[in-house]
């Protein structure tokens, strides 16, 4: 028996979470986007164009890989959904393709995006290049310094990278700047958000674009094993790779869904990004969700060795899954992630992104205690993290 999939209500809420907490200036743009997406979603020509782009611009269906040595190591079969093989090295391109095709249908000529580590910025710059659209990526000045190579990649593909000079000068602030840019240029500009966050309809739209992950994986598991996984595991930053996996899987109540947040230096320190574990509900970047914040409602800074998880918010549908218990959210520390990064590299010759390493860390932590096959979303490759890894090792 499968269960119906979650959908946001009329106001864009998943239970208590989501909605549209935005200035009036953005309301017409969000209305326009909602309508355009609703039309596109049911338009076979849109879906065909999106499917073709996923298949040839990236490599969907991405493989499902039975990691034999890892399986042996943890005692149950582990299947890796190879989103690391996507064009540009992460699942981010799935969503970027979906949104850019929509933007073009809407006649938008200018694309903006926010980025932290630069993965979503690179994906956006690439798809904007591919469709010949002007592109500006907002990125915290601090992140620009830390992720120079991704900045150069974006520039090489013709995007302008605009330093965000406010606040902590990282992803949160880049997002604020992107929203400000959008407010100022709302009539010409398409804001291509990088995760299942932001005002309605972004969380459900981005989720839909990422749902190829879960849909493909289910079919592949069925074909390969004749059954379902016992666990669906993914790391959670904003939550797009996780929701891309979880949403299709959530139709099957017997699958345990497990999202892993970044515990940074530990959830009992000040330096972590474990939003569901340690935050409480609030409004940031256009949606109600869980949030790392102080007692006054001021948003606090997140910390993780993984730049892509270093965000104080989380997608509202995850907050909803957390509240309803449909998914379980745990966390993994920087140290556990590094260990998982090394373990997968050595056992399988696959260097995972630091982000994905958090999900792997959960599997390793539970070695010997798992009850059945694990389906894990390997959201990205770790090439981008090598330098940070070496710094970390030297720091020891």
């Amino acid at each position: 028996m499968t269960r119906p999939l979650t959908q946001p209500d009329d106001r864009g809420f998943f239970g208590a979470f989501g909605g549209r907490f935005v200035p009036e200036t953005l309301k017409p743009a969000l209305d326009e986007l909602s309508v355009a997406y609703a039309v596109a979603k049911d338009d076979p020509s849109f879906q065909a164009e999106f499917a073709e782009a996923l298949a040839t611009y990236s490599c969907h269906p991405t493989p499902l890989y039975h990691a034999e040595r890892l399986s042996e190591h943890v005692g149950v079969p582990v299947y890796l959904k190879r989103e690391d093989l996507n064009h540009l090295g992460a699942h981010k391109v799935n969503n970027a393709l979906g949104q850019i095709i929509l933007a073009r249908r809407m006649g938008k000529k200018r694309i903006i995006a926010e980025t932290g580590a630069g993965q979503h910025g690179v994906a956006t710059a690439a798809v904007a290049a591919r469709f010949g659209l002007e592109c500006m990526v907002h990125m915290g000045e601090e992140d620009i310094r830390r992720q120079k190579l991704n900045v150069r990649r974006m520039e090489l593909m013709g995007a302008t990278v605009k330093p965000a000079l406010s606040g902590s000068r990282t992803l949160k602030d880049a997002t604020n700047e992107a929203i400000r840019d959008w407010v100022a240029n709302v009539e010409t500009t398409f804001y291509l958000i990088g995760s299942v966050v932001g005002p309605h309809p972004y969380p459900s739209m981005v989720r839909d674009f990422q749902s190829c992950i879960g849909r493909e994986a289910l079919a592949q598991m069925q074909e390969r094993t004749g059954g379902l996984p016992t666990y669906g595991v993914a790391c959670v930053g904003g939550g797009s790779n996780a929701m891309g996996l979880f949403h299709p899987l959530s139709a099957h109540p017997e699958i345990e869904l497990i999202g892993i947040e970044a515990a940074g230096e530990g959830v009992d320190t000040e330096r972590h990004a474990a939003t569901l574990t340690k935050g409480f509900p609030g409004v940031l970047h256009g949606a109600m969700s869980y949030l790392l914040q102080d007692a006054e409602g001021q948003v606090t800074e997140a910390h993780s060795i993984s730049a892509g998880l270093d965000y104080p918010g989380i997608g509202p549908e995850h907050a909803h899954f957390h509240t309803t218990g449909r998914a379980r959210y745990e966390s993994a520390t920087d140290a556990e992630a590094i260990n998982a990064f090394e373990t997968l590299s050595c056992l399988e010759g696959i260097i995972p992104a630091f982000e994905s390493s958090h999900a792997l860390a959960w599997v390793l932590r539970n070695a010997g205690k798992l009850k059945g096959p694990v389906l894990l979303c390997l959201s990205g490759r770790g090439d981008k993290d090598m330098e940070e890894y070496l710094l970390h090792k030297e720091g020891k």
Partner: protein
Amino acid sequence: MNFTEFIAQRVASGRKLLVPYLCAGYPTPDHTVSLLHALADGGADFIELGIPFSDPLADGPVLQAASLVALRAGSTLEKALEAAATFHAQRPEVPVALMGYTNPFLAMGAEPLARKAEAAGIAALLVPDLLPELWDHLAAPGMPPLVPFAAPNTPEARLKELGSIGGPFLYAVAVLGVTGARENLSDSVPAFLARTKAKTGLPVLAGFGISRPEQVPDLAPACDGLIIGSALAKALDGAADPVQAAKDFLIPFRVAMDKKP
């Protein structure tokens, strides 16, 4: 007389409302009460007291910076309410409205907020990231009325809707963009204000981008009043005597607004 009646009366009297926006706790929490007085002295009809937020996504650099300075100096919603209460006790004839982002209000909780706001005599609440559709998130007994916003891209049907939602007045965002003093506003602003007034039927106060008394003659006739934020924060920035600076800043606007065309 409630705040809605207060506005209506001033509008009826033909007076253009002058509304400065003051970031609570800027430059320090100790300045807030005296700055409220200075603005009242400078001719404010009422005052918007801004609640600093870590992520002020509708604000330009000047108010972002003011917000940050205030937060670092220990400004909180609680303290802002205390300052407003003090001021209200001393000068009840100059109302204070709170302007702030959703999250700090939610963090306090709608009910405690309503209770404390009522006690402090808060006249209204302006929440730039809370559309009227979501006002239920701040609904609580005794909560001051919320104020709707309109922008140049707000469609006519939406303006009518906003009118029917109502409020003490409508905050007309004069530009597509964030807050911040602009040298010149678009020529289409007066038409936008007139349209907004006509379609909503509400008193319309215009804000975002008003920086110089010279802009007043173009704008004031098309609306019921002007809100001035970033330009004031700029005037306070680094001022040796912020209180004097606030008053000196506001008076020319008052003069310009009282000049009959």
